[in-house]
């Protein structure tokens, strides 16, 4: 598969002028508007607290959350690193296993008929219930967190990837036969590139849900990570720090989402 990505990458050269002309406007629309929306929400939050005089241990003011972000930045960063590593590990593992499974399913119908329902069944298990089981099985280290983040990213990628690999143009596949292409070649030239837009749709979902998975896993049996910090500060009524931890989590998830989107922009140019 890395071969497939390389092929797609080296082949893609869109007229530079065309892509550059739109880049500025796209950036404004993609970045400026969301920033305005978020700023408006923060303002609304501040106004509501003042009007209804909400006590700070229930909902902190935006200013106090900002202060917590600055004052506790060392602590927040320390706890972010495990969460980032677990999310990335889970994202990579979940997607790789899902891609491998999808490739196996597309080439072996029996395997698909046997294992696809199992994958669906596993999906229906509540992740909050699986988390303690994984901790029991895998201990207190990174392993159970990565496993849960992987599990949560696995299913959307599997479903999308099977669909993507099967979305290959039947006439392009017939052409591969006429050209006496091997199965590997048909995969490399047609199936794999056809699946990339589907894969990226799934990975965009996975980029944020992997952080959620890591966070849920940190609720139990650990003393580091943003998930741990969130639970701790909830019990202690340190709502400003709690909110700051939530902002950090959200920022990490957004950063992942952004990275995947950039990667998609570079690799899947023909869909633009």
């Amino acid at each position, binding site marked *: 598969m890395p071969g497939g990505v390389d092929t*797609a990458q080296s*082949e*893609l*050269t*869109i*007229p530079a002028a065309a892509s550059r002309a739109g880049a500025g406007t796209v950036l404004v629309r993609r970045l400026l508007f969301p920033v305005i929306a978020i700023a408006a929400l923060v303002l609304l939050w501040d106004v509501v607290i003042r009007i209804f005089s909400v006590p700070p241990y229930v909902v902190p003011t935006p200013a106090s959350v900002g202060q917590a972000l600055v004052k506790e930045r060392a602590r927040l960063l320390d706890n972010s690193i495990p969460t980032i590593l677990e999310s990335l590990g889970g994202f990579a593992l979940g997607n790789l296993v899902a891609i491998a499974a999808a490739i196996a399913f597309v080439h072996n119908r029996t395997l698909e008929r046997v294992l696809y329902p199992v994958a669906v069944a596993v999906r229906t298990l509540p992740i909050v219930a699986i988390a303690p089981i994984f901790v029991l099985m895998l201990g207190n280290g990174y392993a159970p967190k990565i496993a849960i983040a992987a599990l949560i990213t696995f299913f959307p990628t599997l479903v999308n990837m099977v669909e993507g690999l099967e979305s290959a*143009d039947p*006439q*392009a596949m*017939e*052409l*591969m*036969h*006429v*050209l*006496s*292409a*091997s199965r590997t*070649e048909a995969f490399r*030239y*047609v199936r794999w*590139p056809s699946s*990339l837009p589907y894969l990226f749709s799934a990975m965009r979902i996975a980029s944020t849900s992997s952080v959620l998975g890591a966070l849920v896993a940190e609720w139990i049996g650990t003393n580091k990570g943003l998930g741990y910090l969130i639970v701790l500060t909830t019990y202690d009524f340190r709502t400003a720090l709690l909110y700051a931890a939530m902002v950090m989590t959200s920022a990490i998830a957004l950063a992942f989402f952004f990275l995947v989107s950039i990667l998609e922009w570079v690799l*899947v*140019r*023909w*869909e633009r």
Partner: protein
Amino acid sequence: MDIVVRDVSMVFPASAGPVRALGNLSLDVQSGELVALIGPSGCGKSTLLRLIADVVQPTSGTVEVRGGPPARARVARELGFVFQHPGLLLWRDALANVSLPLEVGGWGRRHQAPHQPAELLELVGLKGFERAFPRQLSGGMQQRVAIARALVTGPPILLMDEPFGALDEITRDHMNQELLRIWAATRTTIVFVTHSIAEAVYLASRVFVFSPRPGRVIEEVAIDLPSPRVPAVKDTPEFVRHTAALRRALAQAA
């Protein structure tokens, strides 16, 4: 003789019982000829092309392509195939789509390609569109890329399955003219499946009329119009006579 089809029957399994697509079909195509296959929908014309291209195997009967089994011709890249839809790879520009057959199986490394991909794009009238992606091209232009792709390994036989069926009439007339030009330039044997009587008469030197399923040849019409064909020929009484004859044959077939 480039293509010899003898007594070929083709039965497809289906949920409602087996479907006989072809029944005891025989036909010959000579080297360098442009023949058209015409018949009602579902009469097995496309199936016949797929038999010749070794995409499917006959239930009974024999197909010979250039003196051997179709599989040999397929592996030797003696067959070019143009589908109803262009089937281009969206992530490759026009030039990279044309050179795809050279890359598959490393054919281009082991053989001297008779034409450069860029030359072929020029031949199909797409000079200057080398770097354009399929989504940036019109349907007619995409089909031309597909034709250039089919020709890049210099196959002696070109199989075309309603290649212009999805195009509007003006584009189609233009593409017919282009195809005749390409045919004259490459001297390729062409088997052309179509639903259009006028297209069949205009392009082909012989037209095979198919019966409804199970398809077989019920009439073979030689088109003795002067060549090279020019659009004005469509207004001649001879042209009208041929189209009328084909229309009658098709009406009897139904």
